[in-house]
Each structure stands twice: as C-alpha cells, then as structure tokens.
C-alpha cells in the first residue's frame, strides 16, 4: 500500500463536502494534504501533474456527492488488501 495515496484519499473523504462546493464534477489532484489543481478529465489531470510531480505521489479523484465515484463492488473471489 502506498501510504501517501492513502493519506490523500483520507484527505478527500474528510473534505469531500467542501470540495464538492468548489469542484463538483471535476477531477482534483491532491498531494501533501492540499489540492494542487482541478481538471475536466482524469487523463489530463494525470498527464499534466506528472510534468512536475512524480507519478505515484499524487492522487486524482473525481469530485462528486455520495460514494459512487470511490466505491466498487465485487461479487466474486477477488481479494483486496
């Protein structure tokens, strides 16, 4: 597990409501407890950010209300750890 991204994911969850107010529907880039920027699509968010930050050190998350954009379901025998 990459602890860095776990922390950034926790940041998103903690500040989701505020982020929705400001960036609803966009993709935010989070690193070191702050939002670096916001983009209209995930690919652009990653490709632009990796010009100045190492891939794997920042988290890209679509901003939206609820849990749908960060929740997945598996009714099979996949194991996640």
């Amino acid at each position: 597990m990459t602890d860095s991204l776990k922390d950034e994911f926790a940041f998103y969850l903690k500040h989701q409501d505020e982020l929705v107010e400001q960036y609803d529907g966009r993709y935010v880039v989070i690193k070191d407890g702050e939002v670096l920027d916001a983009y209209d699509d995930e690919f652009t968010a990653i490709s632009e950010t990796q010009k100045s930050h190492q891939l794997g050190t920042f988290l890209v998350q679509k901003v939206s209300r609820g849990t749908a954009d960060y929740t997945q379901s598996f009714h099979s025998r996949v194991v996640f750890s």
Partner: protein
Amino acid sequence: MIWDTGATNSVISRAVIDACGLAPTGMTRVHGVHGSAEAETYLVNIALPNMVIFSAVRVTKGDIGGVDVLVGMDIISSGDFSVTNCDGITKFSYRTPSIEHIDYAEQAGAIRAAKEPPPNRAARRRVKRDGG
C-alpha cells in the same frame, strides 16, 4: 483473463503492476465477499485479443487468484456480451460498440410460429370471410 459480470470495475494483479512498472493514480473503496477495504487504482490501456483497445481505463489492484486481469462491467457494459451453450459447448463472445439486443424469448416465439401447421381450407375461408 477473467470476465466477471459480478464486478463493477476491472482489476489487475500485482504481477501486472510490477511487470508494467505502473504507479498508482488514485484509490477506491472496494466491497467484496471478503469484506471492505481500500485499494489503489491505476490508469491503463487494455487491449483485448480481438484487438479492441480501451484507453485510460481506471483499474483496481487486487488478488484474482493467479489471474492477471479481471474484466468487469465497466468494460463489458460498453458492448455486447453473450454466453451460449449450443451442442453442450459453452462459448462467450464480446464486441464493442453494441450493435443490437438479443431477445431469446422473442426468437423462441418466432420459431414456434414457424413450426405451426398451415391453416386448413375451412380456417382459410373463415379468415377471408371475417377479414382477419
């Protein structure tokens, strides 16, 4: 490769991540038969054996029991997917984009209608007289 209609998203194994030198770009919450957890996500291109390529697919890291890739409904639902068992041989097929719906109940009705015997002379007269 596993095709899994019970998975909302596609999954790749650690072996694939290591072999391709991938770095995570996000995280997600996953709910499975073993409970809930958080897992890293990666943005990848997936090429199917029929050379259909899906670009910038967000996949999740997971242990698929020795399998490299699990194709979930995020990909399956973008095309037509079928499982047939004619002559006791199970086959599945996939195409994208979707072209048409398959309605086996409707096809069965058409087959039954085709097998019905043609109306006799009296029935034909009745239809002609009643205008049906």
